[in-house]
């Protein structure tokens, strides 16, 4: 789990000054979570690697536009999110169906869903079956443990929509895992 202290020590200011080591540290920190988020949505390894590279290059070019250094992580993911949407548009894979705006309980804990060894494959299969709109939210929640506000910012969605999508996605995951187990 990413600690708040870890986030504040990210060398964003140094990276802005053009320090290559700072960039290396930032990329090293985010490359895997970013890749997991992208590949789970795009489902193509090479395209996902390309998007990771494009995201890094965009970050280098546009870091000056980032106002709050503490939000580097969510800013980087929002760049990747935009690139995924562009990919979906190009390939017409997007299906952003709305699933209502019911409010779920407040900020949930990503680690509340603990999965035993037997159910790990089932979890991944169930995750694959989620619609992209829900999968995107649930991945941001699981992979980088972003808060609901941060997810809303990254996905450019109202907070209520994020809450409801996360609630329905987790419920669907639990149900499907249970169903497959029985």
């Amino acid at each position: 789990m990413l600690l708040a202290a870890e986030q504040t020590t990210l060398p964003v200011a140094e990276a802005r000054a053009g320090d290559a080591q700072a960039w290396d540290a930032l990329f090293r920190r985010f490359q895997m979570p970013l890749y997991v988020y992208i590949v789970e949505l795009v489902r193509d390894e090479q395209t996902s690697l390309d998007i990771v590279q494009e995201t890094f290059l965009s970050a280098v070019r546009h870091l000056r536009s980032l106002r709050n250094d503490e939000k580097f992580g969510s800013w980087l993911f929002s760049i990747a999110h935009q690139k995924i949407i562009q990919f979906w548009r190009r390939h017409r894979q997007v299906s952003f169906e709305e699933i209502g705006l019911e409010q779920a309980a407040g900020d949930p804990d990503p680690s509340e869903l603990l999965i035993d060894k037997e159910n790990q494959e089932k979890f991944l299969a169930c995750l694959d079956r989620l619609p992209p709109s829900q999968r995107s939210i649930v991945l941001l929640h699981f992979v980088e443990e972003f808060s609901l506000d941060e997810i809303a910012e990254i996905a450019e969605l109202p907070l209520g929509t994020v809450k409801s999508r996360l609630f329905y996605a987790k419920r669907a995951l639990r149900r499907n895992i249970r169903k497959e187990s029985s």
Partner: protein
Amino acid sequence: MKTPKEILFGRHAPAEPKLDGIRALVLDELADPPAGRTDERARSKIDFVATLWRELIAPWPTAWAGLAAVWAVIGWFSWSEPMPRAQEPVHAQTRQAARNVFARLKEQRELLAHELEWAALEPPPSPPGPRSEILSTIRAV
């Protein structure tokens, strides 16, 4: 027991070396930009056009093709059709008005010439005689 994050990271762990490669590539570019910083503006313009193409044109090729076809048909109609009939009388009227003006002008010119001709036939006014003659005339009256 594992968290979803651990499961997902485990699933994609084999991609780690490739990600390291990408990181090295981006850092190389950061240290030594391929076309130099001076070309950044030109590159951003190209990026803008490329983005415009990617975002606006490429996602809806049929829509743009349809729009182009509609414009082609409109263009074809506007070029192949003769001058709209509604404009013909206006054109003819203009031509007629010009003819009338020329006719009136010709008439005026002839009248002027005629007047000048009459003026040429009339005897010029005789210059006044000597003052003694004028005085005798006055006395006789």
